């Protein structure tokens, strides 16, 4: 496990295999809370936090518990994720009530954000250890935040543009996402030697 490898894991998860734009994970918050840049950024940070805790917990579960009962994998992961989200929710409610209101229903819905469970499952199936897993989680979280912020920035501008009535709203958001996703495909050639 050397540093190059960790950097590679980080960038691979953040831009090349961006969780939202290439793997289609976490689309609910991607479309739901991307109307303002500030909220989108904070949502991303909350996600990074939950991701890192989840990946640590899933590593511990995988190493000490699930070797004896592999069929409990999904159930135990989702319980860990649900409790972490509950914890984050309480912290945010205490620290910043305004952010709590801005995130609204999407905060408890981090539980059902496929990016979190997907991260835990991918991290295990790729055979990552603890440190690699944490870098993977950080990369995925940064990638998610990047996608959210980019999307929010574009949406803020398109909102003011004169678009036909039938593409206003969700249809337009999908077109923006499609174009962003195409742009991210360009990263596929990065680090070709790997």
């Amino acid at each position, binding site marked *: 496990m050397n540093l190059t490898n960790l950097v590679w894991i980080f960038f691979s998860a953040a831009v090349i295999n961006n969780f939202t734009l290439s793997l*289609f994970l976490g689309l*609910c918050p991607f479309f739901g809370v991307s109307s303002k840049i500030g909220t989108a950024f904070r949502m991303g940070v909350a996600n990074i936090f939950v991701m890192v805790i989840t990946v640590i917990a899933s590593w511990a579960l995988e190493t000490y518990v699930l070797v004896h009962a592999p069929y409990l994998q*999904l159930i135990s992961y989702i319980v860990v994720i*649900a409790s972490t989200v509950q914890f984050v929710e309480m912290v945010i409610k205490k620290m910043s009530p305004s952010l709590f209101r801005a995130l609204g229903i999407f905060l408890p819905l981090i539980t*059902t954000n496929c990016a979190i469970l997907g991260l835990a499952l991918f991290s295990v199936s790729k055979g990552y250890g603890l440190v690699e897993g944490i870098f993977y989680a950080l990369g995925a979280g940064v990638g998610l935040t990047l996608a959210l912020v980019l999307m929010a920035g574009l949406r803020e501008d398109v909102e003011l543009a004169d678009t036909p009535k*039938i593409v206003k709203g969700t*249809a337009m958001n999908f077109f923006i996402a499609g174009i962003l996703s195409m742009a991210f495909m360009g990263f596929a050639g990065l680090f070709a030697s790997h």
Partner: protein
Amino acid sequence: MTAQSDRERAVTELVKGIWRENPVFVALLGLCPAMAVTNSAINALAMGGATFFVLVGSSVLVSLLRSWIPKQVRITTFIVIIATFVTVADYSLHALAPAVYKELGAFIALIVVNCIILGRQEAFASRNSVGLSALDALGMSAGFTLALFMLGSIREVLGNGSFFGVPLFGAGFEPWVVMILPPGGFLTMGTLLMIFNWLSERRKRSAQLLLEGGAA
């Protein structure tokens, strides 16, 4: 409540999910699987089938247990029930159809976090009788499968020039590869939503014209 209206109610619960309250196109739920596994028609159907099993199973079980589940821990209870059904679906599919399982990858396991399923438990199954919950689950999963199948067919036909793996066009057809790549999912979905908006807009306008014509 008479027998007649009971039956009407049952039909309403069954039919609403298929089109009028379609979980993907109208409620915009379950977008992750709707984008990720719809690069071919067969994958879309397999995903629809697995979701059907999980949604109907957990709706019936939640509805049966609804008076025993404490309100404070209901979400956790629902999700554990859902995770159990998904584990069953995951292991069964792995044993029965290894090729499809390999194609869908982690997305079978990710049915756990499909918002449609948790949403139906919270909004419907935890408040209604077993029969109605089963019908609601049937309708919703049919609507989900329909949406996936539409997306999957369009993307496969355009992106690969085939339908269920059978080539449709001659050798001269240049496939639009982008359609089966990630951006294609977003673009297909955007185009479909745009067409639906256009249709409903047109219907509204013709209704308006009819009204004005009647007044004149």
